[in-house]
């Protein structure tokens, strides 16, 4: 089956509309909002701060802790029960692994950097939106970073390779679907998140990663712009 045109009229290499903003949670040490289409993520960073209980402490360096959470009303179906699910725990884990490589926590032994990601509204691509928001929030917290992290999903719907799948594409019934969330450190092209559901062949996968890299660079520019806006205002 051929997937001729995307329902919302986007090009196959085009994301949904993106909004990014930094510093929206005054109580946090760093915070950001990232919205892509109908998927909307907030991230707040607290720390480096003392880590309790003590046995979790690492005397060599600080640790990073991420928590991904969907608000109870954030799904278009039934209410999401509060408290972690197996899914949200796994996403928290891969988010942590996606962000850790850009941080340098060696100067903060026995400490923790907490990243809390909250989603008021979701429609596909929520882990990537969370990672984009979190990486901006880490920068806003003033932590030393080697790079930002930009994330997007790429995939295959019917016979087409495309970026940033929406809900109708994730659940496309008339052909094969592959959904591949990736995160990239845009300055070195290193990949820090890679998951996949569905089926593609090796050549398609490599093509998709190239498409993802390109889009992540566009997202990176938006993230940088949002950070500069806040700090530009602060200068003025």
């Amino acid at each position, binding site marked *: 089956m051929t997937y001729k045109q995307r329902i919302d009229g986007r090009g196959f290499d085009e994301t949904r509309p993106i909004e990014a903003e930094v510093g929206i949670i005054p109580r946090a040490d760093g915070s950001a909002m990232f919205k892509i289409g109908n998927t909307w993520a907030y991230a707040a960073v607290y720390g480096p701060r003392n880590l309790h209980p003590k046995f979790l402490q690492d005397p060599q360096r600080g640790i990073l802790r991420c928590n991904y959470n969907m608000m109870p*009303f954030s799904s278009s179906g039934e209410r999401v029960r509060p408290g972690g699910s197996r899914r949200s725990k796994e996403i928290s884990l891969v988010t942590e692994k996606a962000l850790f490589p850009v941080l340098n926590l060696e100067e903060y032994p026995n400490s923790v950097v907490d990243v*809390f990601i*909250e989603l008021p509204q979701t429609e596909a691509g929520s882990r990537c939106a969370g990672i984009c928001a979190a990486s901006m929030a880490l920068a806003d917290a003033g932590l030393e970073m080697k790079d930002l992290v930009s994330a997007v999903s790429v995939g295959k719907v019917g016979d087409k390779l495309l970026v940033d799948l929406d809900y109708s594409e994730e659940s496309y019934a008339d052909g094969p679907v592959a959904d591949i969330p990736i995160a990239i450190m845009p300055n070195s092209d290193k990949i820090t998140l890679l998951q996949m559901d569905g089926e593609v062949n090796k050549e398609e996968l490599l093509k998709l990663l190239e498409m993802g890299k390109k889009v992540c660079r566009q997202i990176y520019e938006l993230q940088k712009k949002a950070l500069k806006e806040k700090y530009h205002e602060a200068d003025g």
Partner: protein
Amino acid sequence: MHRELRSHIIKLLSADTRLDGRKSTEYRKPIEVKYGIVKTAEGSARVRIGETDVIVGIKMEVGEPYPDTPDEGTIIVGAELLPLSNPEFELGPPGIQAIELARVVDRGIRESKAISFKKLCVEPGKKVWMLLIDICTLNDAGNLFDASSLAALAALRDAKYPEFDGEKIDYKEKTNKKLPLEKLPIAVTVAKIGSEFIVDPDIDEERAIDSRLTVSSIDDGTLCALQKGGDYPLTLEDITQMVEIGIQKAKELRKFL
């Protein structure tokens, strides 16, 4: 309790000012109510009072009524004190602070009879609408009680029934039908510190107050719920004054809806 902070606040209040320059019965600015911000919810609102920032979303379900009220729907209020919103909040199931917040908001709506539960009945004894009202804090800069109550009420005003064919709900389709909202209960928390009363305590003032009284009232000034908190007792004279302040300030807050 922070003793030095407390005596400093009392000293300021004797000159009718506060840490941030407000008068004793003045709310922070701006007060902002935004409707329908979450598309996945049947009703939603975001309320900001100063830097305090709260989102409330409502999901609607059809379920079985309670056996003792077979022809009445119901509301279920939950509060998540998200660790993203305050460095002292932790992950995990709702603690006592979150439970108290949810119950105070619940009582304001329930006891004012703002919503006629009988009108939420679909089929007596079998099917009624249940309103699942969830409060999520984005930034806790103090006075979550008043911000959450206001946001819950705004979300109720915003809510529209989803499509329901008698068997299943189609959450993708919203109808134009609004909830049967008959009154507008507003919560105002009045705090006592020394012999002074203040409204809308910020995060520092919350640490230093002796006691608080959350006063929920409807449009004509009738009280519908009260909640006393804090470690110190109140006299009858205190309560008289606090209730009066609560009713007056509710009129002011109602204008932001």
